[in-house]
């Protein structure tokens, strides 16, 4: 029994079968990649997992509880954090403030105000945020205006913001898309480090095989909305069906 169980999920958009009978099980503390050609339904699947889309049929269970029908913020509170294809950070805020918000959210739940208390007095929160930035090697950038940072730094910050909440499942949506090689490698290193140091389950949707094969322990190949195969990276590499459907096309 995995921490995330997707059973018989179907989703149609008009005439298009976006997801057809998807079954997926992600084991706890593993790194599971979902790959597939463009239009294979990866993003649809991800949106189902985070509550943005509701499937026509099927169930999605996280740690024994259904995620269907819950709002994104409720799903996050269950312990699922999401990293977006384009980094979603609080661009108007400083790096440190970006890091404080998830820590506040974790401590206070959805709504507690402290409307009068100054955020500068929240010693404990600041310490935690600074420690996290230290871990990310971003401590020197704490007062940067976050929107003006490089894409790699934004990604790093976003991942850090997710980690600051100690999620049980981290969902990554093409985390290195549009990044320079050096930034990509940095991100891979960061994710490896996270995988090694924390008890965390990672589900990653990716296009870049280099990233997938450096990180994943198991890989599901999605084609036309349906899982084709699921196996270890080594086996996937040599799988004829995969070569045909995906890698062949890529070559």
């Amino acid at each position, binding site marked *: 029994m995995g921490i995330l169980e997707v059973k018989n999920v179907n989703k149609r958009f008009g005439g298009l079968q976006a997801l057809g009978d998807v079954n997926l099980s992600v084991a706890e503390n593993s790194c599971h990649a979902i790959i597939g050609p463009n239009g294979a339904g990866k993003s649809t699947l991800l949106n189902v997992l985070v509550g943005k889309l509701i499937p026509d049929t099927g169930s999605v269970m996280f740690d024994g509880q259904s995620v269907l029908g819950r709002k994104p913020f409720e799903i996050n509170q269950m312990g699922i954090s999401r990293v977006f294809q384009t980094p*979603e950070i609080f661009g108007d*805020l400083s790096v440190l403030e970006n890091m404080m918000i998830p820590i506040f959210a974790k401590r206070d739940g959805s709504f507690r105000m402290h409307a009068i208390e100054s955020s500068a007095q929240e010693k404990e929160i600041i310490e935690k945020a600074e420690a996290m930035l230290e871990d990310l090697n971003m401590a020197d950038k704490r007062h940067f205006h976050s929107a003006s940072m490089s894409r790699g730094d934004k990604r790093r910050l976003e991942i850090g913001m997710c980690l600051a909440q100690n999620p049980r499942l981290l969902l990554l949506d093409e985390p290195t898309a549009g990044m320079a090689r050096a930034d990509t490698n940095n991100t891979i290193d960061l994710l490896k480090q996270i995988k090694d140091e924390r008890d965390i389950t990672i589900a990653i949707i990716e296009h870049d095989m280099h990233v997938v094969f450096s990180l994943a322990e198991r890989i599901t190949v999605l084609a036309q909305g349906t899982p084709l195969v699921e196996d270890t990276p080594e086996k996937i590499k040599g799988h004829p069906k995969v070569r045909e459907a995906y890698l062949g096309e890529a070559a």
Partner: protein
Amino acid sequence: MFGLDKKDTTLLIIVAALTLAAPFLLNPFPTDSAMAQFNAGYPDLMQRFVIFGIFAIGFNILFGLTGYLSFGHAAFLGVGSYSAVWMFKLLSMNVLPAILLSVVVAGVFALLIGFVSLRRSGIYFSILTLAFAQMSFNLAYSVLTPITNGETGLQLTLDDPRVLGSSSTADGSIPVTNLFGAEMRATYEMVVGPWNFQFNTGYYLSAILMLLSFYLAIRIFRSPFGMMLRAVKSNQTRMNYTGLNSRPYTLAAFVISGMYAGLAGGLMASMDPLAGAERMQWTASGEVVLMTILGGAGTLIGPVLGAGFIKYFENIFSKINEGILHSWFSFMPDGLEDTLIALVYPFIGKGWHLTLGILFMLVVIFLPGGLVEGGQRIGRLFRRKKSGQETDKSTQSTPAE
């Protein structure tokens, strides 16, 4: 001090000093000089400055922090005024219960409207708030006349059934608003040489409440709550995927700013016990939007500056008439005098709207951050000069080493 950091404390102290010394500062010209026209230090206008300051500070808590642009905030001000006048009519001429009631009623009203309107964002939210406010205005002007006295506005009369206090004074006039006996309209005049300064009880009450509101706004800006509101403005998606529901935050901000508007409305009624329906019209809502943007949305002091700027124009420029122009330029040769007057005339008196429109455009074109940015630029200019001198010194000292 007061739980603020040094910079904010300085700002608060400066604002407090300026506000309390306003009767002096706004009357810089001797009363019989030609420039006296530009004096703004009389009770009614000073009251308006601080009351609209409160309104704009509150509006900025919503718009400046969360980015939600409400086009219906005047409705809360109007509701506040009506509540206060009804309090005067039914309960007592003491302004305290009236102001309290107006804040509470405006808060409740804001809660209802905000709960519905905040289901949408962006311009859809703006139009929803506009629609609610226009409905309130249209109904207050016509169908709800028994409550609002429609076109004329809700006024006190000689036969109000006041529970605490009398319907009319001994000499047959309507009692005046007061705070435990201190009449709001009481004015102490101080004549120093050619100057005449007016100190009005109502102004000081409003000023103190404005300072409290300003202080509260600083606290909110600097609080975790304020940070959450800025996060809402910055990125709602990330907000949701960080386990935060943005609705309670935006609703809280909406209600707080609605209560600020209610406070402003209650104070307006306390200074002058009349509540007119046009206080709720979209133009009035638009005015506070303009004040905030003009001063600098999202800054602490900007809205207050914007409010002062617009009210100054409305009250001072509209009163300059041709006769005054003649008295200003009378020292010139006749031909030149007439030409100058012909040139200036379209911009003053009945043309004050034109001047205001041009100024809106100039400010927003050249000072994208509003008046506050203008101030910052001037500040930077001075600082650059200073730091320039310092660099000079250091370059001079280098060769000596």
